[in-house]
């Protein structure tokens, strides 16, 4: 069964604006094999996968399927050829039944044009059997299923369409350990049946376990291709990061004798996080690593006064913060740069200037709230230069900037006044490598000047590169702290996955 080529990509490139998301990517998938694509966040994995699934079109390059060159102009083309994709966050219609979800948009019709429920039910039962789900599941609401089972339903949908290539996008990131095991068993079974799998993940242990071939992406380029017997964790990590992870940029700071500026005691909020305790000293960078949805952003928003806690307390300079609010946080110098630029950061209809000054308008005005427009202009000009935001005119719309420069605007929004505690939530998500380095340098410089930094990121190499300590989150709880001298990717990852190492 194996050895026969199913699918090849030749010289695929894709740019967004000025950013090269993919450069000259080549890959080959054999029938009945698992090819894993590994890379950090932002390495180009998602873009590549979307091109294969028809959700994006490449700028250049050729795609061959079963020996014939094919054009995949939209998702339907991909489905017709035999390519299915299951995205990281399952796209489901929670209010519809599992049966309806399986056939959405492609209902089986009788010859009179009405929906043929019995036939659909029969086909659906077959499909569910492939993923080992009981038939009675068909009548349940999709939203009532666990995330893992929702994912299985989506895989069943792909299999029912006779897919020859199944793309799984970080499938285990939302699964429990047991659910993951079930998925791996299914993958093995599918291989037996000649289905090829493109497996996207950054979890090295599971990749080593299930893959026949591996390619490593970094900054949109394939840096290394391994077959199962050549690959080792160290080789993959080196290929992913391209350098020793704990390299270069980190600088030791002497903050150890300081008293903590902020101390969090047994903070809880129902359904979000439980019993969170930690402290940060001035000049310290505390990294927070955990999967999306592990409660890390919610803790940050509580520190910023934007979410109310159920129990526990926050001490600032040794005094409990009572009646905490964003206003209170900002007065104390606790600032928060949120994780999603588009929905939580940008004022997209407005200029770079308006975006930069938004949080500190009161400091640019007199006591009656009248703005001093000259002051504003000067402060903004200074910031644009200091943080090298690449723009000719600060009156231009913020959305005319590249993602990296937008992020610099949003970061420097909070650097107009000097922060005491700076909370950065995914500060470099989706931005180019150059700007990323600049932001890393900036974070270190801020810490050197005595700012306490809470750095939240799903980019593990980033957290490891900058943090003095890493606090790991799993399902709303702290699962451990790792000091710089003991940091290993594996160790931190295990804690974040809730596995005690």
């Amino acid at each position: 069964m194996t050895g026969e080529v199913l699918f090849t990509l030749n010289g695929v490139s894709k740019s967004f604006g000025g950013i090269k998301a993919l450069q000259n990517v080549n890959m080959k998938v054999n029938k009945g094999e698992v090819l894993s694509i590994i890379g950090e966040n932002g390495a180009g994995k998602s873009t590549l996968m979307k091109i294969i699934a028809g959700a994006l079109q490449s700028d250049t390059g050729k795609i061959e399927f079963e020996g014939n060159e094919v054009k995949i102009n939209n998702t339907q083309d991909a489905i017709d050829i035999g390519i299915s994709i299951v995205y990281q966050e399952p796209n489901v219609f929670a209010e519809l039944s599992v049966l309806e979800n399986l056939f959405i948009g492609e209902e089986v019709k009788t010859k009179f044009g009405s929906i043929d429920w019995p036939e659909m039910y029969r086909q659906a039962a077959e499909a569910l059997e492939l993923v080992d789900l009981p038939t009675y599941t068909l009548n349940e609401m999709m939203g009532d299923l666990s995330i893992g089972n929702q994912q299985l339903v989506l895989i069943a949908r792909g299999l029912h369409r006779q897919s020859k290539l199944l793309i799984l996008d970080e499938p285990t990131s939302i699964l429990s350990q047991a659910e993951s095991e079930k998925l791996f068993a299914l993958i093995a079974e599918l291989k037996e049946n000649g289905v090829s799998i493109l497996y996207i993940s950054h979890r090295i242990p599971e990749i080593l376990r299930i893959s026949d071939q591996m390619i490593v992406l970094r900054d949109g380029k394939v840096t290394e291709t391994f077959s199962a017997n050549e690959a080792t964790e160290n080789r993959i990590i080196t290929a992913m990061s391209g350098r020793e992870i704990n390299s270069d940029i980190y600088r030791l700071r002497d903050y150890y004798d300081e008293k903590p500026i902020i101390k969090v005691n047994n903070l809880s909020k129902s359904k979000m996080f439980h019993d969170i305790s930690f402290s940060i000293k001035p000049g310290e960078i505390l990294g927070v690593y955990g999967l999306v949805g592990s409660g890390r952003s919610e803790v940050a928003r509580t520190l910023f006064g934007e979410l109310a806690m159920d129990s526990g307390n926050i001490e600032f300079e040794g005094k409990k913060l009572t009646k905490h609010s964003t206003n209170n946080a900002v007065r104390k110098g606790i600032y928060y740069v949120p994780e999603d630029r588009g929905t939580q950061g940008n004022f997209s209809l407005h200029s770079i200037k308006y975006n930069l000054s938004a949080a500190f308008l009161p400091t640019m005005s007199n006591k009656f709230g009248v703005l001093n427009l000259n002051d504003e202009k000067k402060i903004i000009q200074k910031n644009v230069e200091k943080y090298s935001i690449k723009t000719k005119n600060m009156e231009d719309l913020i959305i005319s900037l590249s993602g990296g420069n937008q992020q610099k605007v949003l970061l420097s929004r909070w650097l107009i006044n000097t922060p005491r505690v700076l909370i950065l939530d995914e500060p470099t998500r989706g931005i180019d490598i150059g700007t990323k380095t600049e932001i890393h340098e900036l974070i270190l410089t801020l810490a050197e000047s005595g700012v306490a930094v809470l750095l939240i990121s799903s980019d593990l190499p980033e957290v490891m590169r900058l943090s003095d300590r890493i606090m790991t989150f799993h399902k709303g709880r702290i699962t451990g702290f790792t000091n710089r001298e003991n940091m290993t990717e594996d160790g931190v990852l295990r804690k974040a996955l809730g596995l005690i190492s």
Partner: protein
Amino acid sequence: MGGFIQKVLMSRTYFLTLLLVMIIIIMSILSPYFLTVQNLLEITQFGAVIALLAIGQSLVIASGNGGIDLSVGSMVSLSGVLMGLAFNAGISIWIASIIAILVGVLLGAFNGFATSVIGLPPFIATLGTMYMYGSLALVLTKGTPISGFPESFGFLGQGTILGIPTQVLLIVIPVFLIISFIVYRTVFGRQIYLVGTNDTAAKFANIKVKRTRFLLFTLSGLLSGIGSVIMSSWLMTARADVGSGLELQAITIAVLGGMHIFGGKGQLGGVMLAVLVVTMLSPGLQIANINAIWQLAILGIILIGAVALNQYSSNRLSLKAIK
């Protein structure tokens, strides 16, 4: 030429100025009396109340989240009626005027409370208060107009100073200048546009989103209260139905003036030009002997045209930004 047309379409100020000039030219061809300084100045008195309402409406719209105030007409009616009742109860007409304005503030604050604090959708909440305030005005007066205001009170709505209608010179122009100053030169003004563009981002930038919206609904009530005083002085009666239909005119003017219906964008200068366009249009149409029924149709056409234009220019803008 293509460049000029595009510039006119992109710039609301150019577009409205051009429209205004066209209306004046057409009207003066149709009627020799139209284009006299005296007539033009007199026409502005028709626009005084609606100008105040349109300013309030525009800022509510600018603050986003589907912000709209359907109750402005009813607030004018109810404030006016309470003013009349206060006067009938023996209170001086000037004190009664202040009462009317305070009533406007309270009614507006209630709208603000319902939308911004409780979180009801503004369209629904102010539709509800539109009926509530309007009915209350009718109930209180049993539908009978209140009149008998002292002659001196007419000075505000009927008098002129240097040929300019008093309400325009002493109220509309100062109100416009003060609110423009607030909008363009103060922290609060800037925050209106930021909140209107992205309220989540505003929250994360330590801007008080609810308070901002609450204050704008209250301002809309304040301006409606002032409008009711002008209206009563102009008509020398207080009637329960005096404000009906004004809310739709105010929305039309706000949108024609360039306020983005989803919030965050649009300038008060454009809104004032739009007030002039609409005010010139209706007496103009009367002079030209066009049936009153058609006047409403024309207002409808203008409204749809204005929204289409907004869409066009914002599409152009985002294309330009992506470039």
